[in-house]
């Protein structure tokens, strides 16, 4: 009964979304206030209905209601409770419902926090947002209904894919979806602005927090996914340039470009049409991601629900929304006249360069991802585009971005001088080169990757610090330090995010350049050295877990006579799914990770053991966390917190000079 209510709530939400698409839009066109006012309660109701529906599905998973086909296919009574809950979105239908939950949540948030918006724009934004929901409600209800019943409920379920029985599943998809779907709000703002035919500084200020929030969630989601792959797949890779990863990376790159160009709109009323285009493309790439993940057109390690028919429908949604928005853009873009004037050397120009590099790097990822498809259809060639291509074609853009970032972020608005920026940065440049030379001298081998990573990392981090320092004016250094503490949070956000970028660049380069690997057969009691550590296989035990059998090794890690840690890598077997998994054991450290994997027993006795030393591995995700944290700071800035549309009450003097 409850399940039917959940199903009904979903259909009702679909109906509400249709009403919310049409009535406020027509109301805005005719200037009918009552019709426009419908949008807000409708968005709230839509969200509540979807939330109820989602809660019902979760309840079905928690109580193992195998009369639901979805629960039968993806759950089992022996499964630990946390995986019963996360199993809700560990499959196509359930994850679509999560997508809907977040989509309607963002719609409701846009309604709740939209008080400052002009009524007409607000009605249009909510109507466009609802129209996206209409498309996806239809997709869920007609092709991916999670509430289908089985005529004869089986005694037990078929269990969740063991690879997904991991805490990673609890957080990785929800964060990613918060990012993907969050970009729908930017999209709605862009389309609404195109319908209005007006983009001004206020619009830039309204659209930025949504983009920032989406970008932040996407950053966390991608980092979590990469970390999950790192510890789960058993050899410590963290990025594979897999189509599905690329699908999340493309909107991230475009969103990063968008939140930079929206600053220019907000502060200088320039780059308007370009910003609108980015807002459309960012969500377009989110939809493309959904298509790649759910259609099975491109083979990938973690695509699920490969169903061409569903893929076709998403492709139609993509075509309608992206095509429609771009057509509208073509007609209306001319109406967006730029006001701000700036010289060639200025923050505006630097941000244009930032946008070019981010957009083109996104294009590299895009063409590499779809090229196998294009080559097969148009040139009849079956080929692969893998990590070696992306490493070669993508990396130069990131290097370029890292080189210009400190310079660009320090230039003045409107008209800057390179001399002033250079003076502030020259110290950091020298330090970066010196440390790179040191790294080159110390490392074994003569790969350039590590030293370049060091140089770029120091340069970007130093640039962000120099930026903060410059903002503190000219005074005694104690006064300046105090002033830095009082800088607006947006400045802190900028510095933190840029530092995060530098840290990640360094982490990636350092880990790839200096990692060590050791593969061997070890008997119980054997001791061997890798790098500065010694490893000893103390024991191998076998026992039964809640829903798996496991082989667990005790491997002690030594440094001289001191035991550094005890690692317990496992090899599990899940009988219901008939699938083995490796559980690596990792000793995390600031300077290095020790990563140990146990393999099969060997014919001649002993066990296969793999040991990796991964220097600075955690810096990769640490940097990502800093980037997201920077987003948080920026989001909590006073300027965005208080009613953005309220007319300026303060004198321009109180606005921080930027």
């Amino acid at each position, binding site marked *: 009964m409850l399940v039917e209510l959940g199903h009904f709530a979903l259909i009702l939400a679909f109906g509400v979304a249709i009403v919310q698409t049409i009535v406020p839009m027509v109301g805005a066109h005719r200037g009918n206030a009552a019709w426009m006012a419908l949008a807000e309660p409708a968005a709230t109701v839509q969200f509540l209905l979807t939330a109820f529906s989602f809660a019902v599905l979760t309840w079905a998973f928690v109580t193992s209601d195998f009369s639901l086909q979805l629960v039968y296919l993806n759950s089992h009574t022996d499964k630990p409770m946390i995986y019963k809950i996360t199993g809700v979105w560990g499959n196509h239908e359930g994850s679509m419902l999560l997508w809907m939950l977040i989509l309607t949540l963002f719609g409701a948030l846009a309604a709740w926090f939209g008080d400052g918006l002009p009524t007409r724009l607000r009605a249009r934004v909510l109507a466009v947002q609802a129209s996206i929901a209409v498309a996806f409600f239809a997709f869920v209800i007609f092709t991916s209904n999670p509430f289908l019943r089985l005529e004869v409920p089986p005694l037990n379920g078929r269990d969740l894919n063991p690879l997904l029985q991991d805490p990673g599943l609890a957080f990785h998809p929800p964060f990613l979806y918060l990012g993907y779907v969050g970009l729908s709000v930017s999209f709605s703002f862009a389309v609404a602005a195109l319908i209005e035919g007006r983009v001004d500084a206020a619009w830039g200020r309204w659209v930025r927090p949504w983009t920032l929030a989406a970008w932040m969630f996407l950053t966390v989601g991608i980092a979590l996914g990469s970390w999950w792959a790192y510890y789960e*797949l*058993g*050899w410590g*890779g963290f990025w*594979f340039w897999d*189509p599905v990863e690329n699908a999340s990376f493309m909107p991230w790159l475009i969103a990063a470009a968008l939140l930079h160009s929206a600053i220019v709109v907000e502060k200088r009323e320039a780059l308007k049409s370009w910003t609108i285009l980015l807002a459309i493309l960012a969500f377009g790439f989110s939809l493309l991601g959904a298509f790649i993940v759910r259609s099975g057109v491109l*083979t*990938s*390690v973690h*695509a699920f629900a490969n169903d061409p028919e569903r893929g076709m429908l998403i492709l139609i949604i993509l075509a309608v929304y992206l095509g429609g928005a771009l057509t509208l853009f073509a007609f209306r873009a001319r109406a967006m006249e730029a006001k701000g*004037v*700036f*010289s*060639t050397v200025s923050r*505006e120009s630097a941000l*244009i*360069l930032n946008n*070019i590099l981010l*957009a*083109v*790097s996104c*294009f*590299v990822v895009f*063409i*590499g991802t779809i*090229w196998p498809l294009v*080559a097969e259809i*148009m*040139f009849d*060639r*079956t*080929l*692969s*585009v*893998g*990590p*070696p*291509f992306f490493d*070669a*074609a993508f990396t130069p*853009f990131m290097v370029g971005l890292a080189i210009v970032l400190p310079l660009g972020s320090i230039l003045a608005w409107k*008209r800057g001088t390179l001399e002033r920026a250079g003076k502030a940065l020259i110290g950091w440049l020298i330090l970066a080169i010196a440390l790179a030379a040191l790294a080159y001298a110390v490392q074994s081998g003569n790969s350039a990757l590590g030293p370049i990573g060091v140089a770029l990392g120091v340069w970007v981090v130093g640039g962000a610090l120099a930026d903060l320092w410059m903002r503190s004016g000219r005074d005694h250094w104690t006064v300046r330090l105090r002033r830095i503490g009082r800088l607006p949070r947006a400045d802190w956000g900028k510095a933190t995010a840029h530092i995060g970028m530098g840290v990640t660049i360094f982490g990636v380069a350092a880990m790839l350049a200096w990692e060590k690997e050791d*593969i*061997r*057969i070890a008997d119980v009691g054997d001791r061997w050295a890798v790098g500065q550590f010694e490893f000893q296989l103390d024991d191998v035990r*076998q*026992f*039964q877990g809640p829903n798996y*059998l496991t082989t667990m090794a005790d491997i002690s890690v030594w440094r001289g006579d001191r035991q550094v840690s005890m690692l317990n890598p496992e*090899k599990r*077997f899940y009988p219901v799914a008939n699938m*083995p*998994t*490796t559980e690596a054991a990792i000793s995390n450290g600031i300077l290095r990770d020790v990563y140990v994997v146990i*393999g*099969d*027993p*060997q014919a001649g006795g002993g066990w*296969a053991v*793999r040991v990796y030393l991964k220097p600075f591995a955690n810096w990769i995700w640490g940097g990502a966390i800093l980037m997201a944290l920077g987003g948080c700071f920026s989001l909590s800035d006073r300027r965005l917190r208080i009613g953005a549309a309220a007319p300026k009450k303060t004198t321009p003097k109180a606005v921080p000079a930027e």
Partner: protein
Amino acid sequence: MKRLTLILALLASPLWAVEPDEILDDPVLEDRARELSQGLRCPVCQNESIDESNATLAKELRILLRERLVAGDTDDQAVDFIVARYGEFVLLRPDTSGANLILWIAAPAMLLVALGIGWTAIRRKKTLPEALSDEEKAELEKILDT
């Protein structure tokens, strides 16, 4: 306990990428093999290189590659040997022949176009009034200092 061991041993499917028994004694040769196998795709897997893959075919290809290297093949010869048998599908780094040239040139070309458009857009902007003259600068300094 014994039964458990037996079950595990029976069920243990190859879960690993490079296994200890495959590794060549010559470290230089082994390094070359690792390097090359990271660029070769496992034909039956979902987007994995033979270096990472656990599939039986990937293992066979790793051994085949090592055999070619031990036999004295150059890197190119060894890779060509495998491509001749499994098609260009196994190359994770597509070559630059024919239409693939588009793939490789697209991004740099796009960058040039974008830079061109960006540059003209910036240049086309209405020119700003001239920078401050020296006298004006001096005057400004005076105001700021007081």
